[in-house]
């Protein structure tokens, strides 16, 4: 069988002006134009968005779940990066 399957695309939608594009799912399309048109039909039938990004799935590089510990745990013991780490005297305002 010849290649009959259209490439896979990841779809990102901006739900309203001022918010970021968020991943909503994927779909198949022959090219970017068709991917955007299909994304309109599949993912925005009820005013879910005002802007669409599509990225061919093969271009997405992801972190490896097996590396998650080494990758993300270092942030775990750095509570001082959060404002709640610091005691502010009750009489101090606007901080």
């Amino acid at each position, binding site marked *: *069988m*010849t*290649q*009959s*399957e*259209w490439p*896979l695309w990841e779809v990102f939608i901006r739900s309203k002006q001022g918010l970021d594009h968020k991943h909503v*799912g*994927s*779909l*198949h399309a*022959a*090219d970017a134009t*068709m991917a955007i048109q299909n994304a309109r*039909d*599949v993912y925005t*039938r*009820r005013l879910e968005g005002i802007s669409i990004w599509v990225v061919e799935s093969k271009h997405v590089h*992801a972190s*490896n*779940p097996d590396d998650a510990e080494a990758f993300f745990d270092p942030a775990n013991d750095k509570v001082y990066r959060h404002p709640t780490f610091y005691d502010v005297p009750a009489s101090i305002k606007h901080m």
Partner: protein
Amino acid sequence: METVEINLEEQFQARIDADISIEPKDWMPDAYRKTLIRQISQHAHSELVGMLPEGNWITRAPSLKRKSILLSKVQDEAGHGLYLYSAAETLGTTRDQMLADLHSGKAKYSSIFNYPTLSWADMGTVGWLVDGAAILNQVPLCRTSYGPYARAMVRVCKEESFHQRQGFEIMQTLCEGTPVQKEMAQEALNRWWWPTLMMFGPKDADSPNTAQSMNWRIKRFTNDELRQKFVDMMVPQAEFLGLTVPDPALKWNETKQGYDFGDVNWEEFWNVVKGNGMCNKDRLGARVKAHEEGAWVREAALAHAKKRAERAEAA
């Protein structure tokens, strides 16, 4: 080697027990992957084939309003199929493979769509009863353990509720209409009631995979639990419409605070599952025809994209 495998499996189950989602690149047992591919693709196929019985009535809807609504509903079903195929693809299968399995008859779809839609009242009944049953099945799946499946189901459930309400509205309109219209509604209910009860699948005693699926949280209630919920939910709605549920054994049971109801004709159920229902051949035939007749479009779109990409590169 074996101990490592056991360990991974234990960790996997521990995550599921802690309600932590499994994502595509996470380790999962082969059986979990296979079961999910089968379950999600079967669901996707049901959405796809589910367009056919209703597509049958688009050109004959009684008003422009009803036609617009029905078109939207059928379009939603195409969308639901697409969400679900995408979710299944994250498990390593391909769209081509899933469609090939549907078209060869290897993969199943919900047997409810192998019943014919004979009158306009069937559009009401399908929305009210069939989508009502689908919602009961689907809402718990919004919390299923596999992330992409759960996210697809959230989307599906958001849209499904309109399907049920429009069906109920059709029924209500018919029931408040002329005696002939009301009779049409009753006749549709008579034909769809039992096949809808079959949608929840075989009795728990005949559903050997239920325990494993519940453990994996890819099923959250048993078939019989959902069937009971459905009957308890639907009987008062039928009463509101002034329709009679076609089950002489139906009776309120004060002790269990639910209805007792008659036994489904399981012989009919298995017969339809095996491919001998009223419309199995028609439905699959229509699917295969659409796929084959669309082949040139798919090829042309690919050729066009390739040509444009080459031109862009040359420029």
